[in-house]
């Protein structure tokens, strides 16, 4: 029997959603300050308006839904998916008011792309947007990378009752410290420490490349935010091509590789467990699949003889593959270059890299290295079972922070999530093919959206059909939250109409 949710359930969901939306409103203070600093008055008004709307909505919801009832698992998951949805609608206010979008849906697409650290965008005339608006785009992606729930937990929640339930709903289930609030603060501590160091390097690099100190600083902060959160946004339409610099590439690659690693791995290394880097199933999986994707891309590029020498070939291939595999989406080639120069085989290498994606409990998306490792070990275990005597007990181990025995339930759970990802990749691909796009091109952008990568071969554009925008938006949302929260929201909606 399906139990219909009661008003008391909605009050719990509303109360916590309100808190998260207040958090989104407070985030807008950063771009507002930027706009005021650079005397960009109209964008500043847009941010005041956005802040007012978020705070009014958030406080209003908290007043309506005041309750002391404890949060259940179902509530936590629904809070996450509903908060992300409302945060997208309200976060899109400054976007839409900027005048750079064809519709509110396009503005929502960009906000969802930011929160989910995807990096695809429908914004038009990026090269003439204000510093404040560019700051908002990158703050969105930086905050989204850590998780907007993590932000709310860090700054707005008092007490830890129910906190873990919504923390898990955002696709993060690692407890670095015993208390979940301490864990979220640790995530922020790690991110802010890297922000200061990484931005400083990029700032110095930018000035050595011919940028002025102010523009160099802004670009450094934005590119760091984009790289670290594996976002893929950039302040210029040329993306990373704009810098024409090996130095910039050498600095950004480690940032997005480190950003794509599990926060638990970061914490282990920070607390002295350096050997975890070599032992962790995710790092082993990452380096293995990166190597496979590189070989595929290299084969494609060599077949078409795209680059004049092996160094240029390796530089371009390495940056694009690692950017794809970490689901960052920064690129040193034009979008259409994938189709018009790289060709199908190299594109398949990039698709593979994007589909597998980053680590669990990181800022990245995709199947995740841990699941690839578990499924591979499950396969090995099954093969060993097949060739061993029936009485033999085959034990397979996997290491992630601690060494564990592999059981069927773990493999099944990993398979379920991977199949769900494959489902949304297929959904986006079918939508693209339906509207007349080439199969590989449709697959490329669909996988990019579903894995929150952000590389595009030209399918995503402001003129693409509305239904495709909706499908991609859904892909980004589902992929980032790793489905469970969306399943819970769908379950709630079904229960609302069919429950007793």
């Amino acid at each position, binding site marked *: 029997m399906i139990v219909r949710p009661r008003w008391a359930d909605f009050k719990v969901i509303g109360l916590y959603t309100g808190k998260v939306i207040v958090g989104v409103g407070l985030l807008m203070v950063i771009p507002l300050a930027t706009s005021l600093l650079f005397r960009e008055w109209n964008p500043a008004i847009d941010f005041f308006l956005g802040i007012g709307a978020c705070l009014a909505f958030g406080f209003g919801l908290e007043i309506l839904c005041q309750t002391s009832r404890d949060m259940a698992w179902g509530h936590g998951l629904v809070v996450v998916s509903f908060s992300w949805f409302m945060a997208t609608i309200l976060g899109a206010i400054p976007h839409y008011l900027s005048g750079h979008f064809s519709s509110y849906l396009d503005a929502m697409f960009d906000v969802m792309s930011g929160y989910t650290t995807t990096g695809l965008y429908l914004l*038009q005339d990026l*090269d003439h947007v204000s510093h404040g608006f560019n700051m908002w785009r990158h703050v969105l992606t930086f905050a989204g990378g850590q998780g907007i729930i993590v932000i709310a937990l860090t700054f707005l929640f008092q007490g830890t009752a129910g906190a873990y339930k919504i923390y898990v709903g955002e696709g993060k289930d690692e407890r670095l410290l015993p208390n979940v609030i301490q864990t979220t603060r640790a995530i922020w501590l790690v991110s802010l420490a890297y922000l200061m160091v990484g931005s400083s390097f990029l700032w110095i690099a930018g000035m050595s490349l011919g940028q002025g100190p102010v523009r160099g600083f802004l670009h450094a902060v934005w590119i760091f935010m984009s790289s670290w959160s594996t976002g893929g946004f950039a302040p210029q339409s040329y993306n990373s091509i704009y810098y024409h610099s090996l130095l910039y590439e050498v600095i950004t690659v480690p940032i997005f590789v480190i950003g794509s690693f599990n926060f638990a791995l970061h914490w282990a290394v920070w607390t002295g467990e350096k050997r975890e880097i070599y032992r962790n199933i995710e790092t082993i999986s990452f380096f293995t699949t990166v190597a496979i994707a590189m070989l595929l891309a290299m084969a494609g590029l060599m077949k078409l003889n795209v680059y004049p020498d092996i160094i240029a070939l390796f530089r371009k291939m390495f940056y694009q593959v690692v950017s794809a595999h970490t689901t960052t989406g920064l690129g040193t080639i034009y979008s259409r270059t994938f189709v018009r120069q790289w060709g199908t085989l190299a594109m398949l290498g990039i698709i593979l890299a994007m589909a597998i994606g980053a680590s669990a409990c990181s800022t990245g998306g995709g199947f995740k290295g841990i699941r690839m490792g578990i499924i591979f070990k499950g396969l090995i275990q099954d093969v060993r079972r097949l060739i061993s005597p029936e009485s033999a007990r085959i034990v397979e181990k996997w290491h992630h922070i601690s060494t564990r025995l592999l059981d069927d339930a773990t493999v099944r759970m990993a398979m379920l999530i991977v199949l769900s990802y494959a489902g949304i990749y297929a959904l986006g691909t079918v939508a693209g093919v339906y509207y007349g796009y080439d199969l590989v091109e449709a697959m490329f952008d669909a996988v990019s959206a579903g894995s929150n990568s952000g590389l595009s071969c030209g399918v995503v554009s*402001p003129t693409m059909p509305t239904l495709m925008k909706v499908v991609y938006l859904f892909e980004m949302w589902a992929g980032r939250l790793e489905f469970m929260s969306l399943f819970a929201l769908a379950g709630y909606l079904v229960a609302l109409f069919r429950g007793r």
Partner: protein
Amino acid sequence: MRIVIDRKEKSWLLNGRLKCLWLAFAIAVKVFLVILSGPALGEAAMPQISLNPDYTFPTKDTPSGVEVNSASLVENTSAWNGHVVAFTGEAIGEAMVRGNMAWIHLNDDAYMWKNIEEGAPLGGYNSGHAVWIPADLAMKIRVFGDFKHEGDVVKIVGRFHAACPKHGGDMDIHASTLEIVRVGHPVRHVFNTSRAILAGFLLAVAFALHRIRIIVRRRHTL
């Protein structure tokens, strides 16, 4: 017999395993290089991806210095490779000077004459091209396009590289001449009063709701 490996040895073994992985990867790369070498590296790229007829491409009668747009260069990259082309666009961002040379970026999109901040209709993404040019020519550009400026529109003539050997495979144009077609100008933003009033109203509502929330929460906890 149980073999005991102490921490130091284990660490060495793990590092050794990693070295083996990298060695295997290097060997695999080498094998790929041998098997898939096809036309020798360094030879002129052969256009193996068919031309896109929706965009212009050069024929044997195409003169040197022909005017071309960025979309055609990207869509028919191999065909244009090595040709001397003329390219016109709005200078955006900044000139990044590197020694005697500089990088500039020219946009030939729907906003090159008037951008959205000045009231131009939406016309899709930005598109343009990167240009490698002598620094003294780049210094002729006075205004670069950004939020507060519509940049100079300039015309350059130079050789197009699909994958420049000098710049790590970047797609670029090495320009030898630059001509200012239109001087840029500051963009005048009109203060949006009605939007400011609405923002003030919303903030006042939010503040009132915040006060009410405190009272409601206090009552609830009593």
